[in-house]
């Protein structure tokens, strides 16, 4: 019962971060502030969702797998954000063909 409540609360708070991150990605004016909003959703939002799901895991193996997913997304998200920011710094904002 306590585990279920914790799961629901943690995932809901995580979803708030995702919603805020998405709003920022859509509404912020330039690449850097958009990245800033996006990485918050990835890091904290997913972290909270993963933490919430850990209370539903059937054993330590599942908990470790969930943790691994979070760490991998952290590493990939950080690198991608860094590369987008660096590219923008050296080449200017991305312009599409049309």
């Amino acid at each position, binding site marked *: 019962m306590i585990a279920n409540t914790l799961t629901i609360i943690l995932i809901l708070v995580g979803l708030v971060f995702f919603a805020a991150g998405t709003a920022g990605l859509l509404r912020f004016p330039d690449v850097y502030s958009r990245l800033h909003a996006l990485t918050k959703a990835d890091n904290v939002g997913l972290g909270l969702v993963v933490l919430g799901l850990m209370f539903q895991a059937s054993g330590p193996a599942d908990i470790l797998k969930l943790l691994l997913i979070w760490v*991998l997304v952290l*590493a*990939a998200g*950080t*690198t991608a954000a*860094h*590369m987008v920011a*660096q*590219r923008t710094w*050296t080449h200017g904002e991305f312009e*599409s*063909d*049309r």
Partner: protein
Amino acid sequence: MNGLLVLFDLVLLAGIVGVAWRCLASTDLFRAVVLFITFGLLLALAWVRLEAPDIALAEAAIGAGITGALLLVTLERLRSIMAERHTGRPHTPPPDPTGPHALLRALHDPPPERRTFLPALTFALVVGGLLVTALWHQPQSTGLEPVVDAHMDVSGVDHPITAVLLNFRAYDTFLELAIVLIALLGAWSLGRHDLIPARPAPGPILPGTLRLLVPVAIVTGVYVLWAGSHAPGGAFQAGAILGAAGILLVLARPRQLPMAPGAPLRLGLTGGVALFLLVGLYGLVAGHGFLGYAEAWAYPLIILIEVAATLSIALALVALFVAGRPTGDDA
């Protein structure tokens, strides 16, 4: 709770149709590719909702991930071809609209004026009507699940999907492997690639992440392959993960990529199909039928084929990404 799930399904469906429409209607190719990747991820979610995690894994890894990367690299190459055409020969006459470069031209010209939707609408309505009629008259059936369940004990594995893919319907999988190989032969017949030089890394972050991610990807790939015998997973998913690690290396390439040695590369690329064929022919000779196994040998043979297939798929995906035969390789 059920109502919420129905709501989720409806939102997911609307999202899939909406993203597919935006992807097809987009005149910006880069945006279309990004939407295609999004479409693949939503489709993977739909497979999860249909309780088909195996297909969801394959869709996310191959459909969205690897195909997306292939489309992006194709787009980059198309752009450099277009740039050459525009700067190199400024006064060429407009190319023949039916000639070999018509496609490239069509990609770069503004889209034609909007035409009537009538033919497309009629076609969609007729095909949709036929599909609905076909679904309506579908005979009552429990599907093949009971049949598969009844024969699980002779399949050699514990996961029904793997049993179907590598035992009961092995020739489907065999032909899928062959298609991957044929696609690569097609790419190789179109050209060669030179030595690929190192790409100067913009800072230490990318090489550092690469050193972290590639070993994890290899372990995950082997795990997914191993899990295939009793849980969702298997050769295609594992091959896609290993292939993705290879594509990451090719993309980031902290140092010059070595030329793949011809003979081992060919052996690895064809290993999956060749081993599958050999086992199948042995089954034919030994009286189990083509691609049939003796019951006692089913498990080791399936594992052997899956390992070879995983390596072949991973190699083929990376080779497709690099595109073209290695230069100076005339073996």
